[in-house]
């Protein structure tokens, strides 16, 4: 059959569709999380500014901002891929992406990159809105960018896994509430882990989210709890592990192709 139209891969369309999906409800997917981060900043900043000094010459509110930026990026990257997949599965329109000749790599790439872009957009928004309230310098912007990309990549991938695994919305909520949220809050968004008792300090070192936040924060202040190079290795390895897992699940058709 003669085909006059241009032929290209379906990957860019899947990415476009995923971007359009969250962009159409941007108030809820971008503006709302920025507002949430601002509320954290106002409340914790106001209460703790004069009581806590984590690093020398860094005010608590300034210390808090990179953590909030990273937390917002992580949560929204996760939310994007996981909610898109679960909605498609529950409503049944996931067949629209299962019927075309998309490879599992394209499938993963489409959901992942859209999730990362949403996470980065929210993170940038939080940062821009917070700037007037704090004095913040960026000592090592390369680390900021590297950790932002790696962090949203990890959470976007976790979102793909959760979205594929969950059959119902409450299962996804459980994944979010019992895995993502504790790992985020116990990663040092609101504190330096050196303020914790030794046991909790050791435990924090097992949390991959800790390295994302700590490395990201190093990019701003040039100081951190652990060497950013070590953090980056941990983050990259964790990312590689999750990516391999996700690709294996997709290749097998886990919960998508029966």
């Amino acid at each position, binding site marked *: *059959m003669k*085909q006059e*139209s*241009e*032929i*290209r*891969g*379906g990957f*860019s*369309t*899947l990415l*476009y*569709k995923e971007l*359009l*999906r969250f962009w*159409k*409800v941007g108030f809820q997917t971008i503006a709302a999380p920025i507002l949430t981060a601002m509320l954290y900043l106002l409340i914790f900043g106001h209460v703790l500014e004069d009581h806590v000094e984590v690093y020398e010459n860094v005010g608590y509110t300034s210390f808090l901002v990179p953590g909030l930026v990273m937390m917002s990026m992580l949560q929204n990257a996760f939310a994007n891929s996981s909610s898109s997949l679960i909605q*498609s599965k529950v*409503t*049944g*329109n996931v*067949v*629209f*992406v*299962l*019927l*075309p*000749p*998309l*490879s599992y790599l394209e499938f993963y790439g489409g959901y992942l990159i859209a999730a990362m872009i949403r996470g980065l957009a929210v993170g940038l928004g939080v940062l821009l809105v917070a700037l007037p309230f704090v004095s913040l310098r960026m000592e090592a912007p390369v680390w900021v960018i590297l950790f932002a990309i790696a962090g949203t990549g990890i959470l976007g991938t976790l979102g793909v896994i959760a979205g594929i695994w969950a059959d119902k919305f409450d299962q996804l909520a459980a994944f979010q509430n019992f895995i993502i949220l504790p790992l985020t809050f116990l990663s040092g968004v609101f504190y330096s882990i050196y303020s914790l008792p030794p046991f909790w300090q050791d435990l924090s070192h097992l949390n991959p989210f800790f390295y994302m936040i700590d490395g990201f924060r190093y990019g701003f202040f040039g100081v951190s709890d652990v060497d950013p190079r070590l953090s980056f290795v941990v983050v990259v390895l964790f990312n590689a592990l999750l990516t391999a897992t996700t690709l294996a699940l997709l290749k097998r*058709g886990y919960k998508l*192709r*029966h």
Partner: protein
Amino acid sequence: MTPAIDINGLTKRYRSLQALGGVDLHIRQGEFFGLLGPNGAGKTTLISVLAGLVRPTTGTARVMGHDVVREYRAARRMLGVVPQELVFDPFFSVRETLRIQSGYYGLKRNDDWIDEVMHHLNLSDKADANMRALSGGMKRRVLVAQALVHRPPVIVLDEPTAGVDVELRRGLWMFIRQLNRAGHTIVLTTHYLEEAETLCNRVALLKLGRIVALDTPASIIRRFQAIYLRVRVEGALPPALEGKASVDEVGRQLFKLDDYGQVETTLAALRAAGCRLLEVEVTQPDLEEAFVNLVRGVGQA
């Protein structure tokens, strides 16, 4: 010529459930083919294997010569599937939905064809309406349009007229027939025997995951559509006929016959034996009844 669909020794097992128990099926290009069978017969499973939504346990399936597992990209390009469930993506308009679906197949500038498909399916004035705002019938048409965006040579429709009003059904079939005349192979599943009879040039009857009949609709119907001769006689039946009759719900002798000629010979035999007839009734069960008999009876018969 490469068969449009070529299925060999296909089985599918879900834990304890054997959904497909060894299906062989060859559909030629240009056929209008019907898959018939009751719920749970394996129609949707069979289609899902072709579409790559279900992986076969053993056996192979090819679409236009491409293996649905090993050459899934080529196979899926050849296939357009209209799913049974009325699914849609509430984020998008009709046109967006069709453009996106088209893009998944690598077709980025496909608006002329999209417009044509929308025109044929009477969707043109709803092009910019959100999917949520459409009626069920309209959503069904969008699903058909989505299956056609990449001009697949083989089109599979899984019970496309379930819950669809008469007018839409007629319009839909007119369009599908047109596609068939233009060279597309059509495979449809249905419960409705009449639908298969008027549209399909061949049908396969599935039961418990196996094909139990494969023929033109007319011969399948002929094969299973018996003529019922009910008689009430004084005394007993002659020994020659005794084994051939059963007793119906009001105590009459019931003969299930293949054609009207046998009515003659049966009555002649009764007369020859000197039986006095008190009542005679000849009936032919309607199509749907024949279908029910056929579905129940095949396998035991």
